[in-house]
């Protein structure tokens, strides 16, 4: 036996006397190493997708265009009812987008400005931690993906997501082709015949257009925004120091949604 009870208590007592335990001990004895171990360096060739929203270049019409482009690309129906709403991309005012970074005397322009929001593709995603079937998971390139085949519709992820980025299918999306009033709202559903729809009882959200990325295209919203205003939405690889997102973040002050929660969002806003 290496250490008997008497020795163990002696060591623990002396260590305790100097306050050397856990994280504090690491900080004193090997400063910086714990921090380094917690944040692994990305292996070469691995991408880390992120988006920068340049809110200065964004206006209502452009945001609507992005939303429409996304929802048409992914066959997201319009139910005309906020309780049933499915949204991959949406707009929200400053007060609701950045509740921690808001005060009574904020800049007048910012106060009434709307922001384009979507899934943050957090580096530390709470939704993936709670998913009981791993239907939502983090890809190597940082995209938080949805496996619709595996989703059981428990909605834990919706409760876990602090950004409200997830929507639940309360009914069969195909009913927009059968119910008269929904038909009027969705005259040409399904809008993209190469992309599937969803079924009743699954959760859906933005996937950074994973299927478009696989073809080497940029996400639908980025394409739509940049057709009108170049650089309104910037999409790229955070691991590449020369990428557009890194350049934009280097040159401008940017904020993220609810950074205090520690989910490490990968959606940046230039305000």
């Amino acid at each position, binding site marked *: 036996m290496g250490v008997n009870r008497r020795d163990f208590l002696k060591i623990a007592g002396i260590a305790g006397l100097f306050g050397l335990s856990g994280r504090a001990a690491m900080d004193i004895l090997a400063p910086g190493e714990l921090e380094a171990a917690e944040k692994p360096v990305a292996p070469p060739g691995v991408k880390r997708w992120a988006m920068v929203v340049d809110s200065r270049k964004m206006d209502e019409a452009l945001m609507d265009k992005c939303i429409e482009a996304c929802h048409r690309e992914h066959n997201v129906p319009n139910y005309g009812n906020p309780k049933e709403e499915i949204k991959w991309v949406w707009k929200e005012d400053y007060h609701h987008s950045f509740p921690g970074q808001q005060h009574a005397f904020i800049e007048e322009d910012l106060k009434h400005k709307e922001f384009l929001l979507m899934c943050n593709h957090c580096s530390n995603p709470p939704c993936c931690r709670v998913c009981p079937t791993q239907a939502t998971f983090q890809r190597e390139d940082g995209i938080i993906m949805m496996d*619709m085949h595996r989703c059981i519709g428990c909605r834990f992820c919706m409760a876990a997501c602090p950004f409200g980025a997830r929507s639940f299918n309360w009914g069969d999306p195909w009913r927009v082709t059968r119910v008269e009033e929904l038909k009027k709202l969705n005259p040409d559903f399904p809008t993209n015949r*190469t992309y*599937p729809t*969803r*079924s009743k009882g699954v959760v859906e959200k933005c996937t950074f257009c994973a299927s478009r990325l696989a073809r080497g295209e940029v996400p639908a919203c980025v394409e739509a925004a940049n057709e009108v205003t170049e650089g309104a939405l910037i999409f790229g690889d955070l691991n590449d120091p020369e990428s557009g997102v890194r350049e934009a973040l280097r040159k401008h002050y940017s904020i993220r949604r609810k950074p205090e929660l520690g989910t490490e969002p990968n959606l940046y806003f230039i305000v």
Partner: protein
Amino acid sequence: MYDGGKIIVGLIACLAFFLSPFIYDAGTAAKAPKPVLTEKAKEAGECVNSTPYMKAWHMHLLDTWRHTVVRNDERYYSPRREARMARLDKNLFDQWRHFVSDGARRYVPKEDKVYYKSLQETCLDCHSNKSKFCDECHNYMGVTPYCWDCHIQPEEKK
């Protein structure tokens, strides 16, 4: 035997009653439907894998596709590479050897082609006649795959 005649008549009547569904349907067994190929499919000549393999294993193939596409982002399918892998992977090989005929086992695709793994964009591009190619067989077998809950069926001309 008391009332023997009545009992025998009763037995025959009962038997006839219980067998009536079988008698009624006798000789009308539905023939196993043959999937109809579209012109495009005929022209292509071969599917993404051998015909016997596709007949027996298309559901397994689609299941693997959906898993690897969504979870591993592997979006292209190469039958040659797949055949090589199956030979290397003894478990997989043993597994499908039992189900697949000799022809399928020795199948080598004519060209080294690569396919985009997508039910909607690849499979249904050739097999755009879902009602004749998919549904007839599925109905005959009494299976209702839920692919079509989400994946969009091709528009067919009636």
